[in-house]
Every structure is written in C-alpha cells, then in structure tokens.
C-alpha cells in the first residue's frame, strides 16, 4: 500500500482505474485519504457486527423453541464471522485488530448507531432481522461493487448470510402476527421502536452527508443514502402491510405514479443524539465490550504464554537433535 500524496501521475492512473471500474487491491497505489476512508468505514462495519451480537445475545437464552434458539445462535455466529472477515479486510490497510479494538474503546472508532437501541421483547429479534438486517442488506448489496477488493469480496459473502437473517426475522414477525393478541401487540411494539432507527441507518440526507460525495467519487460508495433508503422503504412497507403491521408514520403517503412511498420527516435530532453517544444503550454497549475484553485478558495472556513456551520447547528439541 503506497500512500505518498501529490504523486499526480499515480493519482491520475488511480482515477483512470476507477473510471474503468477496476478493483483496487491492498498492494496497489492508493491516495492516503482513500485508505483512511476505507479503514474508517470497514473497521466501523466490523465493530458493528460485533456490537450487534449484544442485543441479540440478550435473547439467546430466552428463545422460545429449539428452532428459534438454533437459528438465533447460528445468526449471531454469522455476525461474529462477518466481524472477523471485516477485521481481516481492514487489516490489509495496515492496522491490526487489537488497535482497532483500542480505537473503539477510546471512542475514536464508531459502530452502527442502530445497536444503541435496546432489544426489549422477543419480537425485537424479528424486527432486528427483518428491518435492521434488511436495511443493512440494501446497503451491502450496493457495496459488493465497492472499489476496494477485500471489502467487495467480504460483502459478497456477507450478503448471502444477511439475506437469510432478514428472512428469519420476517418469519418471527409473521409468526407473532399470527399468534395471540399479546404476541401481535409485541410485534407492533417492536415495529414502532425499530422502524425509524432502521431508516436512520442509511445516514443523513444526501444534501447533509459529510462523506458521500468523495466516497461516491472513489466508488467506495456506489449509491447515495437517499436512493438506498427509498429502496428499503419501498421493499419493506408492503411486507409490513401483508402481515397486518402498521408503519408508525402518520405522514406516510403512497405515490401511485412512481409506485413509491413518501415518508414523513425523520427525527434527525434523535439521530444526532445517538451518534454523539447519548443513545439509550451507547454506554452499556461499549462498557460491556470493554468489560468482556478486560475479563478475557488472562485467557489471551495464557494462550500467548503457552505458545511462546511451545516454540521454545521445539527449538530446544531441535538444538538437542542437531
């Protein structure tokens, strides 16, 4: 990875490659800001997968059937796996996982704000799969064509698993809506709480987005926040109506001509609050991650010490044999 700036010939060549939709690989020359933007985005994505294990982990011990328990465990395992690929993809840009985790703990690296909302009833597990993973897929399908090779390839695999997650989430919602009055109420409650945060996952409107323009130019980002958000809205609202869930938006309108829904105003003040760290679970999620990391330190140290001793033993043996 070469990141010397002002190498105009290299920059021109780089831009020419992007123009031809070529894939940029870790050893290729790239502008420092391109690498920086990717590292920020990929590590944030990796942290999101890992922090996202918490709200779902909150229900794993209470999942109500064998089937539900197995699916949820498998799903959480997938999320952890996505975290691993993404950390590896980010490591190709020159920062190791331990450093990325340190940045997370210091508040220098972020994770998706959606996980700063609590998972309060079993239908939340449905809503997280259906709405949160559903929103993530729309974004990630677009990222399969991102210009950085390791990120694009990670997205291909992640998207396959996420579409399973989305279906299992919707299945929970379907079951709850076919259930008794309490179950339907739980499903609607989950819908009411997760709908707007899911829409916020696409980020600010294009006109207010700090990173969009440059990222689009570099083909890191292939489609804008508003385009992706609208795709999600148009895909998801019919699914909600099909099972009898209300969309918690009094200003929602259907535009017959464009076959598209128009939503009311997103509460951007809430969005900003959560981003600034004042969401309901910001503190809890981060302090849980820190606590687990701290509590696991003796295990990591033991494994490292054992590995050193084993290598020494093998060296001693080799010396004795020589």
């Amino acid at each position, binding site marked *: 990875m070469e990141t010397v700036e002002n190498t105009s010939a290299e920059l021109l060549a780089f831009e020419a490659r992007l123009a031809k939709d070529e894939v940029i690989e870790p050893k290729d020359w790239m502008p420092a800001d391109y690498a920086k933007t990717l590292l920020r985005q990929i590590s944030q994505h990796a942290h999101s997968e890992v922090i996202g294990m918490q709200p779902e982990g909150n229900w794993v011990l209470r999942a109500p059937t*064998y089937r539900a328990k197995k699916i949820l465990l498998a799903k959480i395992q997938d999320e952890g796996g996505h*975290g691993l690929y993404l950390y590896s993809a980010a490591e190709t840009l020159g920062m190791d996982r331990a450093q990325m985790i340190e940045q997370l703990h210091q508040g220098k690296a972020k994770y998706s704000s959606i996980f700063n909302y609590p998972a309060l009833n079993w239908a939340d597990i449905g809503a997280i799969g259906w709405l949160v993973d559903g929103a993530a897929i729309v974004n990630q399908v677009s990222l399969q064509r991102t210009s950085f090779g390791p990120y694009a390839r990670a997205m291909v695999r992640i998207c396959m698993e996420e579409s399973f997650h989305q279906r299992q989430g919707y299945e929970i919602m379907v079951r709850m809506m076919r259930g008794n009055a309490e179950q339907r109420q739980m499903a609607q409650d989950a819908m009411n709480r997760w709908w707007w945060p899911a829409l916020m996952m696409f980020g600010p409107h294009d006109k207010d987005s700090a990173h969009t323009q440059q990222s689009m130019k570099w083909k890191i980002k292939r489609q804008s926040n508003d385009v992706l958000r609208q795709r999600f809205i148009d895909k998801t609202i019919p699914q909600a109506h099909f099972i009898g869930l209300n969309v918690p938006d009094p200003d929602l309108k259907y535009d017959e001509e464009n076959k598209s829904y128009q939503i009311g105003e997103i509460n951007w003040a809430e969005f900003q609050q959560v981003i600034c760290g004042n969401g309901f679970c910001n503190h809890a999620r981060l302090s849980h991650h820190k606590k687990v990391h701290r509590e696991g330190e003796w*295990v990591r140290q033991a494994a490292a010490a*054992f590995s050193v001793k084993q290598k020494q033993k093998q060296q001693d043996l080799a010396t004795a044999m020589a």
Partner: protein
Amino acid sequence: MNNNENLYQFLLRCADDNLIAGQRMAEWCSNGPILEEDLAMVNISLDFLGQSESFMEYAASLDTTGKTSDDLAFGRSEREYYNHLLVEQPNDDFAVSMVKLLFFSAFQKELYTALMEGKDERIAAISAKAVKEARYHYRHASDWFERLALGTDESLRRLTYAVEELWPFTENLFETDEVYNSLFAEQIVPDMKSIREKWMTTMREVFSNGGVDIPANVHMYAGGINGYHTEHLGHLLCEMQYLHHAHPGAQW
C-alpha cells in the same frame, strides 16, 4: 403416559444433558475472551442443542399425550429435569467452562461410541452423528486445559480452582439406577463401569499433560438423573422458559 418408560427416561436424560450444557455454553455469546473463541463456544452450544433436539424428538415420539420436543424442553420444571449435575453448574469463568466441557465431552465421546453398538437403532444413529461433535468438543477442551495449565500462574490458579469445583460432580456421570440397568439388560446402553474406566484413562492423560493433580479423597455428589438438582438449575430454567411462563399457550 408413554410406550416405554425406561427408554423414555433415558432419552430425557440425554436430551436434558445436552440442552442444559447448550444453554450454559450459549451464556458465552458476546462474552468470549476473544472473538474466535466466542464463535467456537456458540458453535459448541449449537451442537448440544441439535443433539438435545434429536433425543427429545425421540422421547416425544414415545409420549402418548402428543407432547412435542418443545413442550418437553420448555414445559418441565426442575424436578422433572434429568440432566447430570455437572452440566447445570454455573460458568463462573472461562476455566470453569472449559473444565466442565472437558469432563462432559470425554464422557459423551465414550458413551456415544458405545451407544452406536447398542440395540436401539435410533439411539445408535443419533450417537453416530453426535460422537463426531463430542470428539471435537473434547479436542477443544483438552487443548485449552493444556494451555491454561502451562500458560501463566493465573491461568493455572484458575484452572486448579475449576477442577476442584467440578470434580465432585464427575462420579455422577457414571451413576446407574433401575432405569439404566433395565436398558443395560436389553443391551441398549453399555456397561457404565467400562465407560468410567475409559473416561479415567483419558483424564489421567490430560491431567498429566498439564502437570495438574487429579483431586483425591473428595466427596462425590449424586442426583440429577432422579430430578434432584443443585439450586442453579431452577434459575437456568426460569430464564430459558420465560416466554412460556409469561404467555401460557402461545405458539412461537
């Protein structure tokens, strides 16, 4: 209430052992010492759940009242659970969980190997699939036993504590009663003494690799398989069965 009381009881023991072990292991989800290990423990938990479900479905098939495997898992109280005492013990720390897995997986791999030769075809088939998982669990746990034993002073101290806490529950794994003996007479289940011998041979090897002493002259606890449990089980079930208690009759 079922066609074969002894077989039914034995199937519940196997199903309950795996379900409780799986539930305990799932407590590590998003709490592992490193991401890779978090995933490994969730994976082991999934194996236990799958095994439990296979045994529970078989048990449910003998139940003449039409209960499903979910009814049996989520509808019985602690006095109607028949798992061994070891698996219900709390995780406490990573060393405790790995020592528990070591003791239990070493038991399961011998038991399943023997059950594959037993006269009940369905148990033999479940065991043939499960034994592969038990061997993998054993490898995972015995690797960690060695790492923790030979790692740092702290890891050895924690490992030793875990061994002292859990060893008193190991004899219980080999406990037999009328239910077991009648199935033994039918050649469905193996001689538990031989399972115990094989298990002890494995333990001597693992403990010796780690330079850790096997506890001697300890009081050994009995129970579990007769529905008599440590106080920990009730709390575990309380959490696991929460939705069923909060919303009786709801379908999930």
